[in-house]
Structures are given as structure tokens and as C-alpha cells.
């Protein structure tokens, strides 16, 4: 009898939960009235929270700034965020909450490749809510262009190719790619060699695989010394890249190091200290401490919205991604809906944020830009090396 009661209550609870979940099949409706509702998911806990937290801060800072100035076309923007803990299942739950419960009209500046892709069936296909300017992305996201899916950054693979090309341009012949073992890092590391060889076909590129979340890079550096590299390319999370640089300095491994965009974070400099000087990376944005007016605007907005957050590549990228969305939003006359947002992006035109390279969207081009900014650590901060450049065309 007791078991039957428990079972009945459990079934009722399941039923209530099912009824309370999203209605499915309808676009987000939070664009009418005085408020435009948008949302995003970020890893605010777990192993990549160090990236997710500043990204959330950056995007939120933009919308706070916009609202303080009266909103977009007189409408305030409500930016709701959820913690997906870098987990695909939790991302789907976050998506259901944002789209189904909160009725957002777009997902803007969210984080993650595999995690965001997990939400495509529900968000893009079922609810027809656009996903705009995700931090992440894969080749098959934009070729062919998917309805409602728009991006702003060079793919991780292109970043890897750009890092390899830079190392080869600097004359290095024996390059070792140090990468973490998960598939996401392997997929990026795969293009470092082709990127380097597009500059100099005689370059030799090998790999050193490391367990994800390694904190002691002593043995790794010890092994690397035996390989006698001219240069290393680091396809690692930035705390691990910092740990590598510190050990490399300690053990006397004096070779130039290059990294992809996730390593172009001020957190790396904080953790590695002097050992970061001379580190080269390809960044999605101008350096966070760049003296340009647009970067100053970003820093001021971040300071006001999230005083504890320090300027960083991560928050600059998401601020700019949100800013690009805001610029497109300004072109929409009348009701802001999921459909009108997608239509506005496909109308074409160039968006300048001053932080990212110029973004160009159209009906056939949903990836706004593929250029990257070369940056080098000098005197404890990232400094731009020239203007934005296009990675070598080695990524299929």
C-alpha cells in the first residue's frame, strides 16, 4: 500500500513536470511590449567555469550598458542566463527553461560547441529560436548555413591553423603541438600541421598529448626537451597553458610558444607571471587592454556591470558578440521576434564593433568573420601584432 502511494505521488510529479515543460513548436514570444527577452547558457561551474564566468560578465555588461542608455529602439533587453556546467544534457534543460518558460526570442552569445549543438534540435528546429554568436562553433554549423544559426568567430580549427602558420612564418621547422586529450582539443590540433605547412611544406609537426586538467607539467616538459622542438603550439585550456609556460621556464625549455584563442586570456598572464612574456596567441578580439575607444567602452561597461571581473579576452569576445547582436537589433522596425531577428541577420551588411573583425552576414553567409588577431605578451600584457588576419584555408 505504502509502495503504491509513493508510486502514485511519483507519477503525479512526473505529470506535473511534463505539463510544466515547454509547449514546443512555437517561436519565442518575448519580443513584444517594452522588453526584448534574450538568453544564453554558460559554464558557470565545472572545469571551464574560468572561461564561462567572464563570458557571461561580458555579454551582460553590454546589455546593462544598452539598458542604461534607454534600450534598443526604446525597448529594454532582458538577458537571462543559465549555468550549463559545460554539459550537453544540462544545456538542453537550460534551453527548455529559456525558450519554453522565459520565452526568449534569441539565444545570444552562449558558450560551447558540443553543448550548444545538443540544443539545436529543440531550439533551432522545434522552437525556431535563433542562436546568435556562440563562443565556439564547428565547420558543419555554417556549411551549409542553418536557419537561425549565426556565428561571429573563426572556428577553433582555423585558430589552430593560424597558430601553426604563425610559427612557420617565424622560421620554426620542428614544431610540437601540446594538446589535451579530449576530442575537442584533438580536432583543433589536427589543423596546426596543415596551417604550418601552408607556409612552409618542409616544417615537421608532431604532437604531445596530455591528460586534461593536468596541473604538473614537469614530466611533460621533460619529455619535450628530448624532442628538441623549435617551437611549441599549445592547444590547452589557459590555466594548463600557464602551468606549461611556468615549467618550461623553470626547466630551461627556451622555445617560442604559440596558442589559440582560449589561451589569449589575461588569466594566463596572471597565473604564469614572468613566464608568459613572449607568449604568442591568436585572439578573436583586440587585446583586452588595447587603448582604442571601443575597448575603453568595453572596459568601462564591464567595470560598472561586474566590478569584480577583470578585462579579459573571454569577456571582450562575448561583449562584442552581444554588441553585434545589438547592432542588428537596431535595424528591426516593429515587433522583435525570432523571425524578425533571423531576417535582419540575413538582410546583409557589415557590422563594426571595433573589438572583433568586421562581421558580414547574408542569406548564404551565416559565419560573420573568420579573421583572428595576433597578440603577444609583452611586459605582462597582451599587445596586438598588426591587424586582423585571415587563417590559411586548410579547414574543410
Amino acid at each position, binding site marked *: 500500500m505504502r509502495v503504491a502511494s509513493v508510486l502514485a505521488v511519483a507519477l503525479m510529479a512526473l505529470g506535473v513536470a511534463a505539463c510544466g515543460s515547454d509547449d514546443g513548436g512555437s517561436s519565442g514570444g518575448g519580443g513584444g511590449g517594452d522588453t526584448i527577452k534574450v538568453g544564453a547558457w554558460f559554464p558557470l561551474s565545472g572545469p571551464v567555469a574560468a572561461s564561462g564566468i567572464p563570458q557571461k560578465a561580458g555579454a551582460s555588461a553590454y546589455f546593462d550598458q544598452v539598458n542604461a542608455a534607454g534600450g534598443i529602439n526604446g525597448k529594454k533587453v532582458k538577458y537571462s542566463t543559465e549555468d550549463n556546467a559545460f554539459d550537453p544534457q544540462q544545456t538542453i534543460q537550460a534551453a527548455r527553461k529559456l525558450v519554453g518558460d522565459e520565452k526568449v526570442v534569441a539565444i545570444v552569445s552562449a558558450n560551447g560547441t558540443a553543448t550548444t549543438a545538443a540544443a539545436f534540435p529543440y531550439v533551432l528546429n522545434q522552437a525556431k529560436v535563433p542562436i546568435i554568436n556562440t563562443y565556439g562553433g564547428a565547420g558543419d554549423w555554417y556549411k551549409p548555413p542553418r536557419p537561425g544559426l549565426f556565428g561571429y568567430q573563426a572556428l577553433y580549427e582555423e585558430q589552430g591553423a593560424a597558430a601553426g602558420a604563425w610559427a612557420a612564418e617565424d622560421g620554426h621547422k620542428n614544431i610540437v603541438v601540446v594538446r589535451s586529450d579530449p576530442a575537442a582539443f584533438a580536432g583543433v590540433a589536427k589543423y596546426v600541421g596543415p596551417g604550418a605547412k601552408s607556409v612552409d611544406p618542409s616544417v615537421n609537426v608532431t604532437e604531445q598529448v596530455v591528460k586534461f586538467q593536468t596541473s604538473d607539467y614537469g614530466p611533460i616538459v621533460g619529455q619535450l626537451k628530448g624532442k628538441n622542438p623549435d617551437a611549441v603550439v599549445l592547444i590547452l585550456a589557459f590555466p594548463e597553458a600557464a602551468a606549461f609556460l611556468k615549467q618550461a621556464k623553470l626547466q630551461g625549455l627556451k622555445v617560442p610558444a604559440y596558442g589559440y584563442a582560449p589561451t589569449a586570456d589575461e588569466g594566463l598572464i596572471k*597565473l604564469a607571471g614572468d613566464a608568459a612574456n613572449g607568449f604568442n596567441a591568436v585572439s578573436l578580439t583586440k587585446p583586452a587592454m588595447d587603448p582604442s575607444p571601443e575597448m575603453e567602452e568595453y572596459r568601462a561597461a564591464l567595470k560598472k556591470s561586474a566590478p569584480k571581473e577583470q578585462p579579459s579576452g573571454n569577456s571582450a569576445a562575448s561583449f562584442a558578440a552581444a554588441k553585434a547582436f545589438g547592432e542588428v537589433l537596431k535595424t528591426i522596425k516593429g515587433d522583435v521576434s525570432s523571425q524578425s531577428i533571423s531576417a535582419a541577420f540575413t538582410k546583409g551588411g557589415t557590422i563594426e564593433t571595433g573589438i572583433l573583425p568586421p562581421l558580414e552576414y547574408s542569406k548564404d553567409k551565416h559565419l560573420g568573420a573568420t579573421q583572428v588577431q595576433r597578440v603577444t605578451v609583452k611586459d605582462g600584457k597582451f599587445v596586438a601584432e598588426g591587424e586582423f588576419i585571415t587563417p590559411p584555408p586548410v579547414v574543410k
Partner: protein
Amino acid sequence: MSEFWLSLISGISNGAVYGLVGLGLVIIYRSTDVMNFAIGTIALGCMYLALGINAAGIPLALALLAGIAACSLIGVGAREVVIRPLGPGALFSALVVTMGLSLILEEATRGIWGGEPRRFPSLVEGSLTIGGATFTNQRLLVIPVAAVAMLGVAYLFKKTPLGSAMRAVAESHDTATLLGIKPQRVARVAWALGMGLAALGAAMVAPTIGLAIGGFAAILFRSFAGIFLGGLTSMYGAVIGGVIVGVLDNLAATYVSASWRDTFVFSLVILVLLVRPQGLFGEKTFARV
């Protein structure tokens, strides 16, 4: 050859940290039957506190002592507030409660100090070259500190009345009560001591890995491996097991595969436990039916 010394000595240093944390876990477990999953989060949070105290102008050594003391106090407080009300024998509930506590305190730490990783200053500067490999003095300091801590704990347990009382409570709660020992007082001391040791481990490793929310997870994972390898009932085993895990981890990374290091080490731990389920130094227990 320098690769070998690099792997061995940094492995011993890492293992000393696992040993300190493991020792803390075992002391708490033996005295109160609680496997404290929040030990890492509390220790890490107290290192943020120590960093803040140091940034306010207090010398690092004093700031670290304050952090360690805070960790002991918070540990005792947590035990009194959320563990003790569960009553005796609630092993699974206590386990779940400590897991929940860990998540809550992680969020609290993030809320107070922010999510970005931070650099932690070294207690001692400089480096030493041994066998062609270079080590920071901070890294080498961990080894004698862990050794002194272990000897101190051994002395406490073998030569002092308090230690005898703690051993008695670990053997039999009821018999100890009959002998006039106050188990709750012993439990508080055990939590304070265990948490203090974990904070000491965190203080030793923080200059090497920095402070990051969730950054202690890998260390806690290996500390658990160390205590299961060494024996859940043995304090010597906790430390020696931790050192073995640290050394094997590094040797595996160097001579087997850097991406299979965990698999290699934990496979070895499982093999040992299959042959000796009580661990290398643990005692086999029997229950009369």
C-alpha cells in the same frame, strides 16, 4: 636521466600533498565515520581567505596560519551544524551532506572572490637543480612539511592522552564512552585536525597551481586514491599511499603515456585492492555473525 629525477621528485612532492589531504580524510573518517567530500572545497576557500589577508598587508606565513586555522574552525562548525544532527551511523546521509556542502561552499567562494584564477605567492623563493632537473624551493618544501606533519600526528596519536582518546573512539565509540572519554569532544578535535592538515596541503600546492574554483578536484581525487591504496584505517597508509599515487602518476606520464596516466595509476590501485582489499597498510576487519 633528468627526466627521471623530474618525474620522481615532483611526484613525491605531489604525493606529499595528496598524503596531507588523505591524512586529514582518514583522521576524520576514523574518529567520526564520515568521509568528508567537502574537505577540498573548504581548504581551497580558506586559501582564498589567506590570499586576501596577505593582500591586506599581513605577512604570508601569518596569513597562511590564519587560513589553516579558519579551515579548522569551519570544519568543526560544519560538523556541528550539518553532520552531528544526523546522528550516529548515518554514513550515507553524511556522505551526501558533505557533497552538498562542497557545492554550496564552492558557489559561496565564487560569489565572494569571483571566478577568475589567481596567482598565489610562494612561501619560499628560488629553485634547486637536482640531477639536471630544476625544482622551485616551494615545491621541495612540501616534502619536509608533510613529513613533519605526519610525524607530529603520529606522536599525537601514540604518545598523548588526546591521541589515545581519539584511537579509542575510532575503535569503539561505546567502549570509549564507558571509559569516560567524551566522543563529541574527540570528534571536534578530529575535524579540526583533519581540516587543518588539508588546508596545509592546499597552502603548499597553491603557489604551484594557483587558486581556481574547482581547482582542487584533481588533488582530492588522487588523495582518495591514496587512502584507498594505503588503507582507509591507516594514517601511515594515507600518506604513503598518496606518495605512491603521486610518483606513479608522474612516472606513468613520462614513461607510459601522458594521456593514460590516470588509467595506469588507478588500474594499479584496483589491482592492489583486489589482492588486498584493506589496502597496503590497512587492517582486515571481521564481524561475528
